[in-house]
């Protein structure tokens, strides 16, 4: 017994709907953007409101190099995906590796910056409103970078095992969308924390 | 099978027009009359029995709002009821489907535009009252009180009159010829609270690190009741409000009495010694003595109050003794600990407190 169907006389055989992967990733990005928005709003609201302790312009050093690394990694991942779509798996792997390396440098630099802030400047999450909002916002971003890096490394391992081929381009692209999102968030955090807030 | 597929909209629009012109005014007056001033004896905290300008403005606004919403209710309810009765499936239906009507732009426009107009009217009415209540600034002769919310009692300070008291607020009566409003600055020592005496004004919250202000100008003397209206912890329910609106003379006399130091009574010196030796003075103030704690209510003129524990119990010797022995018997979850005084000590301290007129 077949399900009812009505075929149209002038049947239009084109029926193109968006792909599920990118659609899902856009939704995830929207949700994450909403979380970050709240943390950014809190940061902005509390600018200048700390009653004591180190203030941003006293202790923050603008992380230019780290920013360049992270933003470049968006470029490298874009190239990587392009190469994979052409079937050049080895080149893809190299650019993907470069992306991972740049991301890792960013994280390492963040760790260094925090060590400096904690040990030399005495700024912790408990110190004052600035400390709380700074570590929360930058930390949330760093957490997302970490998760992204873990995913990228996983893909790298699959590639080294020979399991990644041209037909997986869309999956790599979906992951790169997440990575681009993480970079855009950094641009916002950078402006709010290191430019406006200082 | 199915005849015309598009019902003419003209008939529908005409019925709506008749409704608007004849039924609405009738509905409005019925509902408006219903919301007429309710008798205060229905409840001492009836929001529809205002005695002060903010509460009165709100009441007047609310009558307009009720008229509008009541009319909408009658019309739409009527249409729904009609539809539910008139368009029931007839028993002798021949299985034919009724005319399928997919929509009508004119009708949609009508019932979009009319609600928008109603919204504009309500909005303008509300905006006016918001401005008149919130943007009022105190005239020079206003009585200024700072209200500090605590878990679970109210602290009242009259900074320019040098009075500090708790739980029972006294303010002067006001009238249109000689307005004497009271301006309250609202602060909190711990969590969020809300000051709500319905017959005097709408509620305003007391939020730590966020000072608020409100004003009242009651034109009838008397005692007005309310209570905390923002959940603040275990005994939120018993953080009651008692506002005494006094005549000018009574108010001035009250201020006079409250601004003086505590009465010294030789008979109660034993109790006073125990009071001052025990942890009591860490939380309570008795002006003119060593007791200067700020965590609990000021007790300097405790006996001038009708109730204790922020309205939770009448101020009788028995209740006072019970309270001091174990506040949990009257207000479990109150921040005052059971003092663990022995029998004679307890009687002495209670007698001492009873001299604090």
């Amino acid at each position, binding site marked *: 017994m077949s399900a009812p169907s009505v075929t149209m006389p002038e049947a239009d055989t084109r029926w193109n*709907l968006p792909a599920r992967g990118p*659609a899902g990733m856009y939704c995830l990005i929207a949700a994450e953007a909403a979380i970050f928005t709240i943390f950014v709003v809190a940061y902005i609201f509390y600018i200048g*409101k700390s009653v004591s302790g180190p203030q941003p312009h006293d202790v923050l050093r603008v992380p230019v190099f780290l920013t360049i690394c992270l933003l470049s990694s968006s470029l490298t991942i874009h190239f990587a995906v392009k190469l994979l779509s052409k079937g050049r798996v080895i080149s893809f792997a190299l650019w993907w590796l470069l992306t991972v390396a740049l991301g890792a440098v960013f994280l390492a630099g963040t760790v260094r910056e925090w060590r400096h802030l904690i040990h030399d400047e005495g700024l912790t999450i408990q110190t*004052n409103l600035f400390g709380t909002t700074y570590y929360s916002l930058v930390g949330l971003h760093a957490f997302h970078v970490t998760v992204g890096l873990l995913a990228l490394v996983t893909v790298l391992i699959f590639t080294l095992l020979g399991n990644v081929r041209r037909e997986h381009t869309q999956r790599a692209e979906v992951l790169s969308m997440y990575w681009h999102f993480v970079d855009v968030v950094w641009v916002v955090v950078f402006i709010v924390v290191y430019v406006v807030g200082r | 099978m199915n005849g015309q597929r598009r019902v003419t909209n003209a008939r529908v629009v005409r019925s709506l027009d008749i409704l608007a012109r004849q039924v609405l005014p009738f509905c409005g007056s019925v509902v408006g009359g219903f919301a007429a001033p309710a008798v205060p004896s229905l409840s001492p905290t009836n929001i529809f029995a205002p005695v002060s300008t903010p*509460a009165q403005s709100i009441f007047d606004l609310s009558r307009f709002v009720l008229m509008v919403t009541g009319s909408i209710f009658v019309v739409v309810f009527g249409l729904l009821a009609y*539809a539910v009765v008139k368009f029931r499936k007839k028993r002798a239906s021949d299985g034919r489907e009724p005319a399928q009507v997919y929509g009508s732009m004119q009708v949609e426009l009508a019932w979009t535009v009319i609600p928008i107009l109603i919204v504009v009217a309500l909005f303008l009415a509300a905006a006016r009252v918001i401005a008149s209540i919130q943007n009022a600034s105190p005239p020079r002769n206003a009585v200024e009180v700072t209200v500090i919310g605590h878990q679970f009692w109210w602290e009242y300070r009259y900074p320019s009159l040098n009075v500090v008291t708790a739980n029972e607020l006294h303010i002067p009566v006001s009238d249109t010829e000689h307005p004497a409003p009271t301006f309250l600055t609202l602060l909190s020592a711990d969590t969020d609270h809300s000051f709500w005496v319905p017959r005097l004004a709408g509620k305003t*919250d007391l939020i730590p690190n*966020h000072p608020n202000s409100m004003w009242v100008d009651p034109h009838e003397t008397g005692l007005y009741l309310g209570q905390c209206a923002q959940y603040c912890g275990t005994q939120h329910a018993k953080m009651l409000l008692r506002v005494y609106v006094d005549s000018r003379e009574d108010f001035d006399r009250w201020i006079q009495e409250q601004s003086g130091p505590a009465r010294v009574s030789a008979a109660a010196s034993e109790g006073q010694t125990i009071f001052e030796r025990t942890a009591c003075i860490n939380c309570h103030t008795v002006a003119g003595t060593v007791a200067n704690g700020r965590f609990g209510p000021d007790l300097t003129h405790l006996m001038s109050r009708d109730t204790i524990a922020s309205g939770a119990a009448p101020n009788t010797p028995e209740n006072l003794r019970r309270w001091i022995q174990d506040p949990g018997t009257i207000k479990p979850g109150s921040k005052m600990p059971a003092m663990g005084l022995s029998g004679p000590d307890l009687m002495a301290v209670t007698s001492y407190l009873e001299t604090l007129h």
Partner: protein
Amino acid sequence: MSTQSIAWAKTEVSRRPLVEKLHEWVTTVDHKRLGILYILYALLFLAFGGVEATIIRIQLIRPHNGFVSPQVFNRMFTMHGTTMIFFVAMPILFGFANYLIPLMIGARDMAFPRLNAFSFWMTAFGGLLLYFSFVGGDGLYGAGNAPDVGWFAYAPLTAQTFSRGHSTDFWILSLLVSGFGSVGTAINIIATILCMRCKGMTLGKMPLLVWLNLTMAGLVVLAVSPLTAAQLMLLVDRYLGGHFFDTQAGGSAVIWMHFFWVFGHPEVYVLVIPAFAFASEIIPVFSRKAIFGYPVMVAATICIGFIGMSVWAHHMFTVGMSSAANTFFVLSTMAIAVPTGIKIFNWLATMWGGQIDFKTPMLFCAAFLFQFLVAGLTGVMMSVAPFDWQLGNSYFVVAHFHYVILGGIFFTLFAAFYYWFPKMSGRMYNETLGKLHFWLFLIGFHLTFDFMHIPGILGMPRRIYTYEPGRGWDIWNLIVTVGVFFQAAGVLVFIGNLLWSYWRGKVAGSDPWDAWTLDWSTPSPPPTYNFVTIPEVRSRRPLWDLKHPEDPDWQYE
């Protein structure tokens, strides 16, 4: 004129062991099974939430009652609110969405079946974590360590200073966990609807239920995240010494309110929009007419979604915002009444000129229309900020939102249960018991929630474990409590009906209601793969087209 029932050939299948059947349910990724799991889970928690409500109402039946201590009472109202919103209403609506959306769009499953299962189990564990709080601390009689800060957990009451122990942490963590589940489901719904519709089903030809769930999912994605963010901040305050809401360090208690209500207000649209969806499917079928004004209904819903994100501070009219801010939120709140009213008028117009058959689903939908009208109007009253300065945080508000949630959402939910129970179980429910449920519940609902408005007008604030005599509140509280027992009776009849009918009901066939959407074209219950061949549609009511080939919908719209 309904489609033929499918007759299955009788085959001998040996009974599988119970363990295997349970394992299948626990590991399922089939949207229909997950939908049913969500629904059953929600019904269980409905019982818990109902018990909590009953305890509250017994305590308040008269002034100075001693049925429970203030500590227990405060835990009861916190748990009641948290349970009903997060572990009853949301799961049950997700459950129906999960079950129905693929069927209605001609798909075989949701876009991400494993994410679907993950989301369900996250929600389920969240609820279990929340209820585990009862057995911590003092133990059940003292209501253990259950949270007692109110379901919106205002700061600074939730700071370590004022909330010792772990009660608040149970609240935070259980909602964080289930929040991930909610967002997962929402992502799934959006991806499914955008990417998996059958051929011919353009966005303008989807059933309204699908449109409304798409809007709801969009709201979840945007609105649950602020709650997640705020709760993370609260954890930082409580455990890492942070100062987000620490007023002593210059922090703001009001900012918690903003963050919470930025979530909290869209949340109520997340709950009510699926309820509108049920009404939009059921009313046309039982009125025997197409929905009136489909494009306007879609536009109104999207408007509600957008405007709904801009009204949140009407929950904060009393906190001392500037007159400009208060005025803005008055305007945005009133604005949302316009598209909402339009929807009521469109449902009314659908019934107008129809041949309404008052079977149980339609009875519940009709009551929904009357009740939602009242609920909307009391909402309009409170949108007038000065009026809200009196009515806010009182029993008037409690009456209003229960009118929306019970009178609006639950009534349409019951309608949906009765309407789709034949599809999900293959059996018809008992119509007499259904009507009995309706009348019992209707009486109880109105006894409780009509009269509950009055103590609010007479000055009774919410969240108080007892009240003073002599305020004129006594009689109304008594009537309100009495209504609870009628509602409980109604719900018992409902559960009994479902259970009895599942085993003993008449076989339903694939289309007992002579309906028009694709879900009614499958057998009842549908096979795992839903459709033998994926259908192709040409209008909004594919089955109408089949049943009326001389007069199909696609000739008209």
